[in-house]
């Protein structure tokens, strides 16, 4: 568990540093100040889920991400994913399988220099997931054991037709690495507002929402690689004027 966190930190640091590096390089280039904004569709995958599918035992997950630039600052954003996760806790062992879809918007708060096309954004999502849970085994908690301890009880009971809905607040970056390829990272704070639970169990993991806690809050993240498909261009004039004024 510690190791996984450490690698998460290293990855975050590398990512942030690399985005700084990209900006530093961009600052050096001197080009003609004709500013156009490109509009189009960006689509990619969450690398962290693919990586976890390899190194984490009993986890399979895939998430495709996409966004579409609506205005200078606003982007439509969406994620579509599928997860299959087995959790092995002290008292419970269960498998959650299901799909999820999240849709919302991103607002770019980063002022790009010249023809840079990076994003530091905040956004919101509405998430919905349908899934099933299989209780593989469980233990009876006995605070006052006197008789020989009861072993874990194998169950295999499957709870189907479960669903959940939630809202996410997203903070993220998307840095252009080369050509139209982007590397991104986003953090999500989740608020569960609808949760269809089984009668004799709980939704301890919800695909897309991740682990649930006692309250309605949850958290998530993704590391994405994506490709930007330009569709049309728009000239930006207002910012040019401003910059000329500053130069004088």
């Amino acid at each position: 568990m510690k190791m996984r966190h450490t690698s998460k930190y290293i990855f975050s640091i590398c990512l942030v540093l690399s985005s700084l590096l990209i900006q530093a390089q961009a600052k050096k280039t001197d080009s003609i100040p004709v500013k156009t904004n490109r509009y189009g569709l960006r689509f990619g995958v969450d690398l962290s889920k693919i990586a976890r599918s390899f190194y984490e035992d009993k986890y399979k997950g895939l998430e495709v991400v996409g966004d579409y630039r609506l205005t200078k600052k606003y982007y439509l954003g969406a994620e579509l994913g599928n997860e299959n996760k087995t959790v092995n806790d002290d008292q419970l062992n269960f498998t959650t399988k299901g799909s999820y879809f999240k849709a919302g918007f991103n607002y770019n708060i980063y002022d790009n220099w010249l023809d840079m096309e990076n994003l530091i954004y905040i956004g919101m999502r509405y998430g919905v997931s349908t899934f099933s849970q299989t209780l593989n085994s469980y233990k009876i908690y006995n605070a006052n054991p006197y008789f020989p301890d009861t072993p874990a009880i194998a169950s295999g009971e499957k709870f189907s037709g479960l669903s959940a809905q939630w809202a996410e607040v997203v903070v993220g970056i998307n840095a252009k690495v080369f050509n139209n390829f982007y590397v991104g990272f986003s953090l999500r704070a989740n608020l569960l507002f609808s949760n269809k639970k089984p009668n004799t169990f709980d939704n301890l993991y919800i695909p897309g929402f991740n682990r649930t806690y006692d309250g309605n809050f949850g958290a998530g993240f993704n590391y994405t690689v994506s490709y930007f498909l330009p569709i049309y261009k728009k000239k930006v004039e207002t910012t040019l004027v401003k910059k000329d004024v500053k130069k004088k």
Partner: protein
Amino acid sequence: MKKILILLLIVAFSLSGCEKDDICDPNTPTTPRLIVDFYDIQDPTKTKNVTDLAIVGDGMTTGILFPSESRIQVPLQLTEDTTKYSFILNSKNSNPALIFTDVIEFNYSRKTVYVSRACGYKTVFDLNNDTTLPNPYVLNNDPTASTGNWIKFLTVENYNIENENETHIKIYF
């Protein structure tokens, strides 16, 4: 710009660092024990303390000792619908003639109830309350007995054993 990146880093660290400890809180009601209250047969409204009451489960070598209490907690077996105990009064007395033993068998049904991630499931019990089933308690292996060697009378106060806040069995002696 740099401030935002630093903020992002802080958020990233704090989020991945917040993994809750999954330890079952001792205050969470989990599998309950059978609560037995002792009353004075001379004055049935008054509780009476037992002296060095040892209860030993059938097939167990060690018992649970209650030095001087009027309320005791009796663990039930989670794998069987019956639990048999020897209730040994004055168990520490040097004079064997003053040590009294009664054997009580409790008969019940079990239900498994989900508690939480950390606690998993608990078992709750229903003492038998149906003439077609074995009696909820059997004294000294005699289903018709109501008086034992030191126990004068037994009543079931609560057939449902779901928590430890209420009396389930009253014993008068």
